């Protein structure tokens, strides 16, 4: 059975992919993120737009294609996300 993921977990998965699992140094393409984060195109577009506007991801124009890299605030957010995921796990909850 598929595991239910919260919105926060999906964001965590996207940021983790752009930090730890990049295709190349230019960043990750939308198609790559869709596959890695296992999420639909329409949903990831909205999330990526939000993450870029919040400064957690950087959009890089690569020969006409958009690629995404994690920013320094994004790295800090991801660290906080892991810390507080563990904190909430202690209470049997997911953030």
């Amino acid at each position, binding site marked *: 059975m598929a595991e239910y993921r919260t919105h926060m977990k999906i964001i965590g998965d996207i940021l983790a992919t752009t930090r730890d699992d990049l295709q190349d140094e230019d960043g990750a393409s939308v198609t790559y993120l869709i596959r890695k984060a296992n999420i639909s195109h329409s949903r990831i577009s909205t999330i990526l737009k939000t993450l870029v506007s919040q400064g957690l991801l950087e959009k890089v124009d690569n020969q006409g294609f958009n690629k995404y890299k994690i920013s320094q605030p994004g790295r*800090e957010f991801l*660290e906080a996300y892991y810390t*507080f995921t563990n904190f909430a796990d*202690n209470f*049997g*909850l997911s953030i």
Partner: protein
Amino acid sequence: MEFLLENILNMVGFLVGLAIGIMSHIGFRNTGSPTLFRLSIAFFSISAGFFIIWSGYMLEDFVTKTGSIERWIQTLGIAIQTAGYFFIAFSHSIKSFFPKSSYFRSVGIIPLFLVSSVQLEHIFRSVSFILLAYGAIETMLSYFENRNKGAISVAVGLGLLALGEFVGWYSFVFPESILYPVSMIIKIGGLVALFIPVSKVPLTKMKFDDLE
């Protein structure tokens, strides 16, 4: 003896609740997670409830000197703690707790206005017991899914708080017995168990930021 234990219990409850509440609030500010927001409300309420009861005892000891805490202060403190326990249970998706009909929901509040403050205290204690037992069971079930050892400690903590509430309530049947001091010792143990896994969360790199 009872006075000393009451003071220790209320101070430990206030400090543990405040520490976990602050940690949850930092988590909420950093991640925007609604779960952490609910946890921060829960533990700030629990902390405030213990603080109010402790203030009541201090007021009695230094100002009124009547020999017993003002009943309404005790009831208010317990009610605020119960609200905190509700938010812990609510975080575990306690959705079927209230009747769906708005008529039944409105009628459900009426008994609270028809009973004296002593009976209200019993109602709040029994509701607290149910919420704490629910939280303990849900947390233990999550341990079986995730195998996170911290969840055992939190489940034991919530379980001990529930047992403490039950024994404390039962001591009304046998006043002057050892049951009430025992209930306070059990609750102190529960609060310590709650704090153990939370104290291990590394917060040195955490900071408040402006991410909305």
